[in-house]
């Protein structure tokens, strides 16, 4: 949710709530005030009525013919204090019941005790309250509108620096040698944030550079001793006075050093991918890369153990060629290593998707662990358990979707290259 949307929603919710609450209070207060006013009117009327009764000028017949006053005789012992109540009276002219406020009191006059009730119509006050409510609703709506427009205006003014910083930081590339320099903001908090961002990116960049150097150095430090071991072993192989057993031992040393070197290189490769050290990308034909890989595999296929079927549509990608090579070779290697003997590996490119499938037993471990480091099938000793992790890392780097499926004895790997396909962009 955008900041502007969020604040607008909050403002609307808050104003509706406050207005609703305010209206209730306002309504109660208004009604109270009006009631008090009516009560005091009735009291004034009461004293008027009493004066007239005292004067003896009252003609009860006439008085009673009005709606608003009702006088009856009462027993002297029924004398009571004046009391108010709400009631409805039928109004003949309007032909409906109308809310009234009634004042009931008794009076001991010369003619005896009287029970008197005075009525006052609430019709006009109800109308008043109705008007007030309507008005406040209109007020609420226009208030919200004004606030929203104002909010938008303020937002665009105040937050513009923030949005710019956001875009700049978002597009910033840590692997570049340039520093992140954000535009100055006149708002203190944003300026503080910008400074912090600049400082933070500088530190990250520094760490990134250190890590990159460390990777290169570690590689150097480990590869060189390995090279020495390998070299010495190879020299020993050339000596003529070596017996069979020693030769075999040296051969084992060679093979092991080889494995170690490969492992080291694979781990370094993963670090490099994670460090985003493969920035340059170019237009690459997926088909060409695959055909090249298949050609390289021919030497193995010739030995009769493997069988490759392929059906390749053309598909051009915007990708680093080396990474694509590594991705493809690791996928194919995985398929070949884990397929049953004399079975066929199928490779298909269709609609920007690459599918590699090979027959084989179901996975001996959970599918989730398939792409993690050193997950290996105990029955199959070849492969170093990093290949698929490399595949996953490359896919993550380009946000390519890769999925695995097992059905009818076939392992399927499907890589969806649509995100980096140029064909897709044209459409």
């Amino acid at each position, binding site marked *: 949710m955008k900041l502007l949307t969020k604040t607008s929603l909050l403002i609307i919710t808050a104003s509706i709530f406050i207005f609703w609450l305010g209206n209730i209070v306002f309504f109660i207060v208004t009604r109270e005030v009006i009631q008090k006013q009516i009560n005091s009117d009735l009291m004034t009327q009461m004293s008027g009525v009493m004066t007239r009764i005292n004067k003896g000028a009252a003609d009860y017949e006439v008085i009673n013919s009005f709606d608003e006053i009702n006088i009856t005789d009462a027993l002297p012992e029924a004398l009571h204090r004046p009391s108010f109540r709400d009631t409805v009276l039928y109004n003949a002219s309007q032909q409906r019941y109308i809310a009234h406020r009634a004042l009931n009191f008794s009076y001991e006059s010369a003619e005896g005790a009287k029970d008197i009730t005075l009525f006052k119509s609430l019709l006009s006050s109800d109308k008043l309250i109705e008007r007030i409510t309507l008005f406040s609703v209109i007020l609420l709506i226009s208030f919200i509108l004004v606030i929203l427009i104002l909010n938008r205006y303020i937002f665009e003014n105040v937050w513009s620096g923030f949005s710019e910083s956001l875009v700049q930081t978002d597009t910033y590339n840590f692997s570049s040698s340039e520093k992140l320099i954000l535009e100055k903001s006149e708002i203190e908090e944003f300026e503080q944030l910008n400074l912090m961002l600049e400082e933070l990116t500088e530190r990250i960049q520094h760490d990134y550079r250190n890590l990159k150097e460390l990777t*290169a150095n570690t*590689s*150097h*430090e*480990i*590869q*060189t001793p*390995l*090279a*020495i*071991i*390998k*070299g*010495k072993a*190879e*020299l020993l*192989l*050339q000596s003529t006075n070596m017996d*069979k057993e020693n*030769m*075999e031992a*040296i*051969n084992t040393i*060679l*093979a092991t*050093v*080889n494995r170690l*070197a*490969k492992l080291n*290189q694979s781990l*370094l490769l993963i670090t*490099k991918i994670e460090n985003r*050290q*493969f920035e340059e990308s170019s237009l690459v034909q997926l088909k060409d890369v695959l055909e090249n890989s298949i050609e*390289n*595999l*021919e*030497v*193995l296929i*010739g*030995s*009769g*153990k493997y069988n490759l079927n392929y059906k390749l549509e053309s598909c051009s990608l915007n990708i680093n060629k*080396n990474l694509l090579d590594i991705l493809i*070779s690791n996928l*194919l*290697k995985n398929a*070949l*290593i884990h397929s049953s003997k004399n079975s066929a590996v199928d490779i298909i490119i269709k609609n920007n998707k690459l599918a590699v499938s090979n027959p084989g037993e179901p996975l001996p471990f959970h599918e989730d662990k398939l792409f993690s480091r050193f997950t290996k099938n105990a029955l*199959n*000793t*070849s*492969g*170093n358990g990093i290949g698929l992790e490399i595949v996953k890392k490359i896919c993550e780097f380009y946000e390519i979707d890769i999925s695995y499926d097992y059905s009818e004895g076939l392992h399927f790997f499907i890589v969806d290259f649509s995100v980096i396909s140029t064909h897709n962009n044209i459409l």
Partner: protein
Amino acid sequence: MRILLVEDEKELASSIASYLKTNEKIDCEIAATLDRAIEQCELYDFDCFLVDIGLPDGSGLDLIKKIKEKNNKAGIIIISARDSLDDRIDGLNIGADDYLVKPFHFSELNARIYSLIRRLKLDGSSRLDINEISIDPQSREVKINNIVLVLTKSEYNLLFYLITNKNHVLSKTSIAEHLAGDYVDVMDSLDFVYLHIKNLRKKMIKAGCEDYIKTIYGVGYKFEA
């Protein structure tokens, strides 16, 4: 043929030198530092340079620049532990001919030097002759007793690798890596090397060639001539 090996790791340098020296035609000098290498460069002419990039007193890339300024005929092979794409591109851009990542097989280095020297000195056009075998590296044509022998791509690669490392024991791993490159670890056994050797040997003997390929049991093969 004079080769200057610029490598600061003493043990590795002496191993490479003694491997290369088994070929009596090669004379290998060692320089352990950038200064020493530049000095050697000024004193003598070399046919080929093997240059490590990470040297204690500077970058091997600087040396390559200097070599190129002075004599751009010599072949240059970078041997580096840094398998970074930038280094590779930088190295090849300033004039190196090849790039080998440590740890490499000496036989692979030998084969690369061999191809490079042939390419530079002889323009790669002249044939390579060993007794009754004659190879044209340019067209990848093999003749035995002047009759063309048809080989598959990998059989040719295998033969060329064996010949450029003749009289050296080649381990199966090194042959496998040379043939299958990246895909070498697909095979849990290296049977395919055996298969290729078997096919090659059969074809060559059938064409009337002597059997030069010796099996070193448990280790690998050797081309003896």
